[in-house]
């Protein structure tokens, strides 16, 4: 794979700091709008696996470096404080209850409900964690690896356009209000953050029109007022969950280091 020197530097940094090799490979089957993901080394899996969606129009370097940044944030935390993020039983029950009373239920066979609940729960929780921590990683990449700036900007704009698609009426109809509102507030925080950094205020306008910008700005205020230290990552995610009224839907469990 033809990776840039910057990407190779970032991967070396991860391997040195974490002491675990990183495997990078393309995966055209990544679901939905996921552009890249990382599966951290754990238990019997003795390497970090970074996968990205191949795109002939844009090299994958920024996507790989961003995922590498997530690994670094975990491994920069003292071993006894390394935590995994997961759904909690309370969150599972809350989502089930919201889905049960949602009109979309009428058009679904009962057997499809557990699957829908899982998709909604995991989608929201993944957003809750990846957006605020991803913004931390992005700031780090922007300051330490400016050669990635153009790729970063292109990827951010793509993510923003993807998130705008979820404002469309049909998305709103299939998701319970509480889940939809929380998701959009997080997306609005992301849009407001990048509207400011890129000096393109129009990026936040769709969320203003849809009534989510204020909630997004409140989340952003939590993010900005929390010092950028890896040990604060948990506090930011918990703070956002609290603000969104979904505190307790997730839990932190001890990270299982590779054996």
């Amino acid at each position, binding site marked *: 794979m033809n990776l840039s020197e910057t990407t190779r530097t970032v991967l070396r940094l991860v391997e040195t700091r974490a002491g675990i090799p990183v495997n990078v490979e393309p995966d055209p089957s990544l679901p939905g709008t996921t552009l890249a993901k990382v599966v951290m080394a754990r238990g019997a899996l003795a390497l970090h696996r970074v996968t990205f969606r191949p795109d002939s129009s844009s090299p994958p370097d920024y996507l790989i470096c961003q995922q590498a940044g997530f690994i670094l944030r975990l491994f920069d935390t003292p071993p006894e404080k390394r935590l995994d993020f997961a759904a909690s039983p309370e969150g599972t029950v809350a989502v089930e209850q919201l889905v049960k009373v949602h009109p979309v239920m009428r058009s679904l*066979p*009962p*057997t*499809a409900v*557990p*699957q829908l609940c899982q998709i909604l729960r995991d989608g929201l929780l993944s957003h809750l964690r990846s957006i605020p921590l991803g913004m931390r990683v992005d700031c780090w990449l922007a300051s330490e690896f400016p050669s990635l700036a153009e790729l970063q900007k292109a990827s951010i*704009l793509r993510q923003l*356009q993807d998130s*705008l*698609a979820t*404002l*469309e*009426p049909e998305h*709103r109809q299939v998701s319970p209000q509480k889940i939809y509102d929380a998701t959009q507030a997080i997306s609005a925080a992301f849009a407001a953050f990048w509207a400011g950094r890129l000096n*393109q*205020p*129009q*990026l936040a*306008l*769709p969320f*203003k*029109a*849809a*009534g989510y910008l204020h909630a997004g700005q409140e989340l952003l205020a939590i993010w900005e007022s929390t010092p950028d230290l890896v040990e604060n990552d948990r506090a930011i995610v918990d703070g956002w969950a609290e603000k969104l009224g979904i505190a307790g839907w997730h839990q932190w469990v001890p990270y299982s280091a590779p054996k």
Partner: protein
Amino acid sequence: MATLSFSIAATAFDASLLPESSRQVGTPAFSEAVNAFLAAEFKGFGGHATIRVDDQTIAVVWNPDKQRPNPMTVIVQKLQQGRQAEGIQLLELLLSSRPDDPVVLYNLGLALSDAGRLERAEQCLRRAARLNPKDAYIVVALGVALGRLGRCDEAVEVLRSAVRQDERNPWAHRNLGAMLVQTRKTAEAIPHYQAATKSLPNDQIAWLGLADACRLAGRTQEAQDAYVTAIQTNPHSELADKARAGSNLLAQSDFDRVRKVIPRQHAVHYCLDALKRFASLSPGELQKLSLELALAGRDGFAVHNPDSRYRVKGLEGEHSGLAMVCFLYVAMQRMAPGTDLGFDLAAEYEQAKRIFNASS
């Protein structure tokens, strides 16, 4: 900065951004106020914003280019947004100043054809074809309009000429395939659909057309494969639902055929096997298993193929498509008697129940 586009339900717009007297969704005052709000917001960003507000939806496309866009681009954008009447009006206006422009004629013909104004569409497209005889796309559009007019044989001939003109044009092949199916020349349609799917491997319409053509021509396995690809291309679309319906039709007809040639006892045997396996399952376990079975068969089971093999977590071993259909049927009848799965296994199920009850 690339183009920014978004749409939201009119009811989802934050009405607090509007004057109090204009907050009632669906009123002209609401539409005007939303339009004015967005236009004022985008004005500060430069570029060009196209804003559409109707009773249901607010759609915005913002282009960062400061120069006024090409009128043709704006019109095509309107047509893509479903604003056909407005687009047609603008194209007619443009045509009055560019009467011999094949691009305007082609786009006007397409829009008129989509709007059902077929005679005028034919007129525009024939004129465009005369002005630019090398453009196969115009010929394709003409063929489609003729098909919509019900002049199917004429449409087939026009689309054949489009294929001869540009053998690599997937739209020519796809539309010719559709018209051949409509005129009951299904076997002849298949190679055209195959050519379309080769050039457009992610075109769900082409895969669905190929699947339907193969099914009607009795080419069962190819039909099933094409239905599966059509569904996988975009599992949540209306076309995917049509592909599932086609796949079910295929499976049902094959099942009926299979039932005639193999002993009916096979289905009874599988139903009996299912009853035995499910007897010890709790309602929760049975529900979980039926979900697994339904998911395994969401793209149809290959009941016609005795070599087909499926595996689900809740059942030991591998099973044929016919066995899976029987297992799913029995599971659903146990949970919700009378459920219609598109397979009539009532007689086999009743016989299996009698044997099961007698032996237990």
